[in-house]
Each structure stands twice: as structure tokens, then as C-alpha cells.
């Protein structure tokens, strides 16, 4: 599942991620595409605080940073 958080400023990308989380099964991953410079550090911190796994940081086809997270609970 991919969440498009382009143009969304902090803290909206992690809010979008938290809202979308229930729609994936535990063990599955969700990817957030976000261009806000705070999204990278904040998604990692969100994983640590909420008990999920930060899988990888990559880039979408248009160059937008993307962050893959695995739901653990």
C-alpha cells in the first residue's frame, strides 16, 4: 500500500501513515511518499515510538523520497 503525502507538511505525513496503518495486515508493509524534509526523521521516530519496523528509505519514480514501514502490531 502506498500513501501519497506529497506537499504535506510536518506532522501530516506521519498522521497520514497512522491513519492508513489499519488498512494493512500485521506483518505487511506500507510506503509513504513525502517531500517534507521532516518526514524521514519523523517516520523513523514514529516507528520507534509506536513499535513498528522502519524497512527502508527509497525514492519514488518522480524522485520523491519514500519510506517503507512494516506494521508489527
Amino acid at each position, binding site marked *: 500500500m502506498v500513501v501519497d503525502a506529497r506537499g504535506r507538511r510536518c506532522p501530516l505525513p506521519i498522521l497520514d501513515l497512522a491513519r492508513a496503518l489499519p488498512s494493512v495486515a500485521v506483518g505487511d508493509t506500507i510506503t509513504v511518499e513525502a517531500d517534507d524534509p*521532516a518526514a524521514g526523521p519523523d517516520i523513523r*521516530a514514529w516507528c520507534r515510538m509506536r513499535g513498528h519496523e522502519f524497512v527502508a528509505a527509497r525514492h519514488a519514480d518522480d524522485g520523491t523520497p519514500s519510506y517503507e514501514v512494516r506494521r508489527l502490531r
Partner: protein
Amino acid sequence: MPGYLDAAAGLPLHPVAREAYLAALDDGWADAGRLHGAGRRARLLLDAAREAVAAVLGGRPDEVTFAGNGTQALHAAVLGTLRGAADPLGALVHSAVEHSAVLQAARSHLAAGGAAAEVGVDATGRVDAAAFTAAARVDGVVAAALQAANHEVGTVQPVDDLDLPVPLVTDVTQTLSRAPLPGRWDVLAGDARIWGGPSVGVLAVRTGTRWRGPYPDDDRGRIPGVPDIPSVVAAAAALRAVDATRAAEAARQSALVERIRAEVPRLIPDVDVLGDPVRRLPHIVTFSCLYVDGEALLSELDRRGFAVSSGSSCTSSTLTPSHVLVAMGALTSGNVRVSLHAGVSEQDVDEFLAVLPAVVADVRAELGATGL
């Protein structure tokens, strides 16, 4: 100013500073380099201010220079140490959580053809002394910069545990007047606004440390031009006054910080209290709240009479998050730094803690961040 909880950004003029400033306007207006009576009176005031500051720094009066402000002192400390090196384009090693003025100086060194290397920090914002020492021992490194304590999260750095072959620049901005300084130093920089002085920077260069001003040569000292003697006199008077009660005041504020550190996670869900809980400055405490817009939080607290600061990107002019929080791997959104001073009572802290949970809840509700 009971609700002013942004002491780390500066304090109003200390009453002692105000008095000293007014007296020095009459006696210290002349060029201290002149040999006539008015010049000699100005020189006496400047020398006394240097002595007072040197005594607090544990240095000699001729090691102390006054700059126009803290940023200028930090720039001069870093760039002057580099310029004094045998290879002025050699590498500067610095921590990832230095004050932005140090990072600006590092960038200007890079732009001039020099080199720089950054040493990371752990989750509390602390540098590893062995890693920093190793980085500073790499061939080509000519200077190092490590703050005495971090200005955003209060974590004290292991400056006394370093074993460096190069001169060290230590930013003591948040430490001077608040906590003991590192036992050994080569080059220090501080800011009088932090202890209730006017806008004056302090630069100290240890005798024997190679330092050369990053300015056109000027025979009047390390910072070019005639110093603003009334401001310098006021800064020194305030430092002496504040330093006299430092230990007791630090213990009182540290207990209040401890209370905030314990209460905030108890009162507010999904919050991270940042920085080292023990090896920290007595007056700074910082936390980040999930699903909170830092700018909205600051505005709402301000509306209720509390002034704090934030490292969240939405509160910065560049819309980038604090480099300190990023280096620590901390949550950057919903970030609040509370910094105390002698005018903050236990009751003020209680009132802040009474207001904060509802303010955070309101900001979260505004964003629709409920039940997540």
C-alpha cells in the same frame, strides 16, 4: 516574566547589568586605546571586565576578548582556530549537533577550499569521546569543535574525556553561568544574552593556542574595532552576579527540570522526552509530541502566557527540522524546548504542566489526530 520559558534564547537585562551599563555610559565612552584620561578610564573598565570574565572562565584576562554577539564569537572561535593552523585549509572535525553558527563557520571553511568532518551522536545527543578523538586524530585534521553541552536538548558532551592532538573550540553558550565549564579548554565562545547581559559575545583563546583572526589585521585585538565598553562592562557585571549563586540556582532549576521530565510523559500520551536524563544542563528540557504541529503548539502556549521554543520544521524560517533532533533520530514534529531561569518558580512550572496536556490535546484534535 513567570511564563517566559525560553531562557536559552536570552534573558532581559539583569538589574546589575543595567546599573553597570548606565555607569559605564558616563565613564567608558572613549576609545580604550587612547592615552588621555578619558581613554584610560575606558581602558580600566575594559580591563576590569576582562578580569571578571577570565576569573569565571578559569583563564587569564589577556585570553579574553569581547565580540559583538554570541554568533560572532563562535564564528571567530572556529575560523580563527583554523586560520591559526599550520595548514589553514586543513580539516575541521565537529559534532553533528553544534550550534548553527559553528556549522555555518564549517560551511564557510568548506567554501574556502577547506575540509570538514562531522561526528554523529547517540539518541541522547551525546558524542562518543573515543569516536570524536579518533576522528580528530585523522591525518589532515587541524582543529576540532565540540560544545560543552547541547543548546537544544541540554545533553552535556564528554569534552574532558577527549584526547586531542589539535586545538579544540568549545561552545560554552548554554553552559557558562549555568554549570561548571570543562576542565581544559583551548578556545571558548559564549554569549552574554544568556545570563542577562546585553548583546556581547565572549571569545577566549588559551595562551599558547594558535589562533589568527579571520579578519583584516587590526592592532586592537582579536576582534577588530573599538569594543562597546558599556555593554562589555554590563555583561561582565551580570556574569559575576549570576555566577555567585550559580550552584544553588542550578540545583533548584535542575529539580524543576526533573519534574517536567517525569510529568510530561505521565500527562501526555505519545511523547518523547529528549536528551540525557542525568548528564544534562540544569535548565533545559525538550520533548516531542506525536501528531502535533509545533507552530500551532507554540502559538497556543503563547496565547496562554507561556513562551517556549521549538526545533520543529514548521517553526523554522527555512522549513527544515532542527539538525540536532535529526542527528539524534528524535521526532522533530511537535517539539518543545523549555528553558528555565531564576525568575521561574515551582508554581510557574506547575501552571505550565497544568496547561500543557489540554493544549496538546487541542492541537491534536484540530489535526483530527484522535484515536490513532
